[in-house]
């Protein structure tokens, strides 16, 4: 595939962008220094530019005014001239690699939180509360409108003086501009509300003020949604009218279009479609906008694959594709396209770990790429071959931690053997991928399979490594990533037995992996409230079971992130799964052919019973430590990881003993991932990368 359309340059305003690929505006949560673009921020964008990305629009929801809160999500603060030198660093870093960089600027109006930092009074056209952030606000006054119009212009000036290539005005996600547009939020009767022209007025004044400030040789774009998907919201036809209206001014250089409003949990999930969505689900909306405007249209939403992007661009639906999460997963995506290494691209699987962290105010990280946004720490996207001696590295366990360990060690040029007890790689990812709408998570494994094969790792699948086998291989370094097992033995009264026919409860793993057939009338007890519980509920319901999922936590799926739980809820409610909270599983007993689960209310102690034919318990993972303790005392380092070195991304000091022959005979032993303590995929991969990159 030639990727001619993808790699064709395009002009936006007075700027030439080297290809059609954009990393669109998203909150990075990296501008931790009072809204300044930190070293971390710069390196994060530099890496994308280095990897060939044409245009990065940084700083999702970067604020132009002091009363649009910035601190919660560490977004960029353009309300002060202090930002200008920081922008210069950012612009230089991106321009050095031939990329272009613009920033999204906005006033969020009512959309944010007021209960922190400067405790601002939030603003909106008619003072109507926003549900997603549970935020209340005041009705904006005329003076404030004109102040904010001026703030937009000054923010754009700062971006220009900082050497950025343009600004994108956010009129999407129910920020202030589109709060004025939307009749469901804008109930004003003055010149700022009511008629179409009046509702458009605030955005138009912003556009005029910004353009007047920055002139013609600076890009000014507008990001809009293609349809709010609210019964009383702006429709696609409304949005076409709005886009055409602004386009007619000749002052907008591009439109960024995405599908869906986002001021409810359910609509928010549309904005960053997770793996439950089909590819490019809202392309038609962007294509509709392209019909009515005269400038380039950018569209992002579930475009993850360069072949898909090429198809969209070659079809002429839009002019540029946003591949934002695709670049979080692999900032070298374009470089790999150009190198003819499309099958080496680490493709986004839509796990939405990045955006779900962001909604918790945590820095954006990738579930499968631990180097992303850690470039400033020296975490590499491309592992360099070791200049030191070639070592024998043996990895036990083919889950994410083990696969990453094997990959990194092999990239270092070592002789790597990987043991996996199952017939295929993936560990818990394989199980997770069995649930409805979750199959794409197996993409994580697929990439590792390709890479490990390319790197010539000796993969011993279906082989459970024992002490003797491992020692026979005479490893220099042994990495244990053996994972764990479902922790059903925690409470004996649950009636778990290792003999399947005697056990009263089964694990979510056994259900999802197909080891145990689904019951007809099933109670799921979910003590964890992560993906596993709702996944097994969805799976069982999908197989026709009547399902109740019970938790002692606040709600089943409570720990599933904000862009993921809505797709589970849609499916579970649709399948009439009962979700019950505040009940703990007390005990299970058998009565005839049936099972009786005794549930106890967390707050009242009152017990109630459920008569079912299957009880599934999701109680997290218990580490498998046997192999570790068998080998620990034989290893040079007694299995210990030097945390100072690990956290500082420095080589483990004990590695030196291998080269110098000190520290006794034998191997170095490390363990990581769930066989240490159950955490998550990212944790296992991060530990593997930072540990093994210096082998």
């Amino acid at each position, binding site marked *: 595939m030639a990727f*001619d359309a993808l790699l064709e*340059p395009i002009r936006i305003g007075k700027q030439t962008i*080297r290809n059609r690929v954009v990393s669109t505006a998203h909150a990075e949560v990296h501008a931790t220094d009072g809204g300044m673009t930190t070293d971390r921020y710069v390196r994060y964008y530099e890496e994308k530019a280095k990897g060939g990305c044409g245009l990065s629009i940084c700083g999702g929801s970067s604020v132009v005014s002091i009363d649009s809160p910035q601190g919660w999500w560490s977004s960029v603060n353009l309300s002060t001239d202090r930002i200008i030198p920081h922008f210069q660093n950012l612009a230089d870093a991106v321009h050095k690699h031939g990329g272009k960089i613009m920033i999204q600027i906005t006033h969020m109006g009512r959309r944010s939180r007021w209960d922190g930092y400067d405790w601002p009074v939030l603003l909106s056209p008619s003072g109507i509360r926003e549900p997603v952030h549970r935020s209340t606000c005041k009705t904006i006054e005329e003076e404030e409108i004109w102040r904010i119009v001026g703030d937009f212009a000054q923010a754009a000036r700062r971006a220009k003086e900082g050497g950025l290539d343009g600004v994108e005005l956010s009129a999407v996600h129910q920020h202030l501009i589109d709060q004025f547009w939307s009749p469901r939020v804008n109930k004003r009767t003055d010149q700022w509300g009511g008629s179409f022209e009046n509702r458009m007025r605030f955005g138009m004044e912003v556009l005029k003020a910004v353009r007047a400030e920055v002139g013609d040789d600076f890009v000014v774009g507008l990001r809009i949604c293609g349809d709010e998907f609210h019964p009383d919201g702006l429709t696609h036809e409304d949005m076409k009218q709005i886009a055409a209206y602004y386009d007619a001014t000749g002052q907008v250089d591009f439109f960024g279009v995405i599908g869906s409003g986002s001021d409810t949990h359910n609509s928010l999930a549309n904005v960053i479609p997770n793996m439950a969505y089909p590819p490019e689900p809202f392309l038609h909306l962007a294509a509709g906008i392209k019909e009515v405007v005269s400038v380039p249209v950018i569209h992002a939403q579930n475009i993850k694959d360069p072949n898909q992007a090429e198809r969209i661009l070659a079809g002429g639906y839009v002019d540029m594709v946003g591949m934002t999460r695709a670049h979080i997963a692999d900032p070298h995506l374009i470089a790999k396209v*150009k190198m003819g290494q499309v099958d080496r691209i680490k493709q986004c699987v839509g796990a939405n770990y990045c955006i779900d962290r962001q909604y918790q105010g945590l820095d954006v990280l990738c579930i499968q790429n631990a180097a992303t946004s850690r470039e400033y720490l020296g975490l590499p996207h491309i592992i360099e071959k070791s200049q030191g001696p070639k070592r024998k590295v043996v990895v036990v366990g083919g889950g994410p931690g083990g696969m990453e360990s094997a990959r990194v060690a092999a990239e270092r040029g070592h002789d790597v053997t990987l043991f996996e007890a199952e017939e295929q790689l993936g560990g818990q990812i394989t199980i997770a991928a069995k649930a409805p709408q979750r199959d794409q998570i197996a993409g994580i494994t697929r990439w590792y399979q390709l890479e490990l094969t390319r790197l010539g790792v000796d993969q011993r699948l279906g082989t459970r490594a024992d002490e003797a086998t491992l020692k026979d291989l005479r490893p220099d370094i042994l990495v244990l990533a053996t994972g764990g097992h479902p922790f059903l033995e925690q409470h004996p009264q649950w009636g778990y037995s290792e003999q399947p026919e005697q056990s009263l409860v089964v694990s979510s793993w056994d259900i999802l992996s197909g080891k145990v057939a689904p019951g007809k009338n099933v109670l799921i007890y979910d003590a964890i409230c992560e993906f596993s519980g709702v996944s097994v509920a969805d799976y069982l319901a999908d197989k026709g079971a009547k399902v109740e999922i019970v938790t002692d936590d606040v709600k089943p799926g409570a720990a599933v992130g904000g862009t993921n739980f809505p797709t589970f809820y849609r499916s579970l409610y649709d399948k009439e799964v009962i979700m019950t909270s505040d009940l703990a599983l007390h005990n299970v007993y058998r009565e005839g052919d049936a099972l009786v689960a005794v549930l106890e209310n967390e707050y009242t102690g009152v017990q109630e019973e459920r008569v079912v034919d299957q009880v599934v318990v999701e109680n997290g993972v218990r580490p498998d430590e046997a192999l570790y303790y068998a080998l620990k005392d034989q290893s040079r380092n007694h299995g210990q990881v030097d945390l100072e070195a690990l956290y500082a*991304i420095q080589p483990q000091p004990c590695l030196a003993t291998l080269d110098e022959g000190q520290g006794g005979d034998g191997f170095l032993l490390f363990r990581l991932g769930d066989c240490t303590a159950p955490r998550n995929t990212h944790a296992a991969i991060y530990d593997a990368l930072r540990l093994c990159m210096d082998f």
Partner: protein
Amino acid sequence: MLDILLPILIFAALALAAIGALRRVRLWRQGRSSPVSIAKGLAAMPRRYLVDLHHVVARDKYISNTHVATAGGFVAAAVLMILVHGLGLGSLQGLGGVLGWLLLAASACMFVGSLFVAKRRRNPPPRLSKGPWMRLPKSLMAFSLGVFVITLASVGIVPADLGSWIVALVLAGVVTWGLAEMVFGMTWGGPMKHAFAGALHLAFHRRPERFSTKEGGSGRSTGLKALDLDDDRAPLGVGAPRDFTWNQLLGFDACVQCGRCEAACPAFAAGQPLNPKKLIQDMVVGMVGGSDAHYAGSPYPGKPIGEHGGDPHGPIVARPFANGGTALVDADTLWSCTTCRACVEECPMMIEHVDAIVDMRRFLTLEHGNTPNKGGDVLDNLIATDNPGGFDPGSRLNWAADQNLPLMADRQEAEVLLWLGDGAFDMRNQRTLRALVKVLRAAEVDFAVLGNEERDSGDVARRLGDEATFQRLARRNITTLSRYRFTHIVTCDPHSFHVLKNEYGALGGHYSVFHHSTYIAELFDSGRLNLKAWKGDSVTYHDPCYLGRYNGEYEAPRRVLQALGIEVKEMARSGYRSRCCGGGGGAPITDIPGKRRIPDMRMDDVRETGAELVAVGCPQCTAMLEGVVNASAEVRDIAELVAEGLNEESAQDRASRRTQQSEEALVS
């Protein structure tokens, strides 16, 4: 008796030789006219033989020494024999006696030489033709021994009649055999024909400039000759043997069937249906008329001997579907050639195989419209879009949207015009171009590009035989170039380099053209590049044909690698003996199947060195070598290695500081 018989034999042989020569000349003159200076050529011939030809022959010390003894001995013996035995000067006292002794020495020398010829023929390498060539050592011995013995009588060591008339008669027979082979066999088509035709071929060579001169000429002439497309009478290429120029036919006739071309030919080694030696012999068959049944060397792989034939006026290639069957050669033989010039480089008789092949391809393409496989598409693309891939001609600079390359159209002048080549459309080559731009910028070279004004150089069109498209592209480029002022053209594409440097001249474009390796070497030598020490894997270097054999540049790329601190692990076949990657002459486009792929064989050469990286200097070589499955070495252009080796501001060290996780900095 001998003193009567010998003059008769000698003059009869000479007379027969003269008749044979006239007949041979008539065969050559079937070809088209070709302007050469007869007098100058004949005057230059001894030097061409003794210096240029000997330079090639001397690559094989055994045969070169053997040839000096045998041929030197023969020429001297032949002249002396005419004097001594033909004119009877040997029986006189004084000078005559000396002549006799000299003749003894010459024939002895020739005899010793012929012993070595015989030794070579005892177990000959497969590249040597057999047949009549197997009797040659015996003929040489017969001549030299016969002359030696009869001359013993002349100097008085043995009696005049050697004791008996029977012995004399036997001896006369031996001498007759020798004379037959060595004198009239020379012009009547025996193995010794090579001496007669070879000498005249050297004198009237179609490329006199390829020979050195006392003043030190370039000694290199590799550009293809332009077709005069405006001459209605001139055939478009060569369709029948008579369409060659007379001195091309003469050149074919000079072939000594040593098979050095066959041993060097990558297509032959790959089992494609081409053997340069057989091709030249087929041209001789065509010139004389007949079939190839008497050919006694290796056939075209997969094509049995005896099925092809022709005549001077008949077609060389049978027109498919018209009369079916075969003619002198099959089209796939001509399309197997990569135009790598390995055969020309090795040929001790200075025969121009590549010229001949392209001449015949011109006819197939221009007259038959029959360029095989993707050839037609590529030519259509070149006609429609001015580039072989059919890309939008306005997209040549797409790869460089982030490079801010200065355009000649904006600048009007620059020290260096960077010629991009069609690699500008290829993602792999774009990496090389980016690296080259980085190097030029690091050395602060004042350069600019033509950008979308640049067209394909015409290389592929020309080598696929489409001379018309070549000339159109070349003229267009020449017109574009004439609008701007620049001192040099620099390009990373040896094909563009060769065409711009050696083939545009005939159409009025004369430029100072550098291959990037040469230019980078000069930048380094003048201290404009600051390179750091090489830390990578072991490296070998692949000489691109169009840089090496076509233009004699073997040193600069190696100097650049040395400047990077790389010690090149040379392949057995490197320098002028480098094996082609298989990518030249449109061969990947016409794609004639063989038993193996040429680039696979080249990667085997690389593997033998144990190098983990093969440095190249050509987009075609890069593409071909990178296309090898399970290659043992990485393929990198020299520009990429230099760009990586540039001593820039030290790369950002891995951050050593402990960093607080951003979570800590957040308000929970």
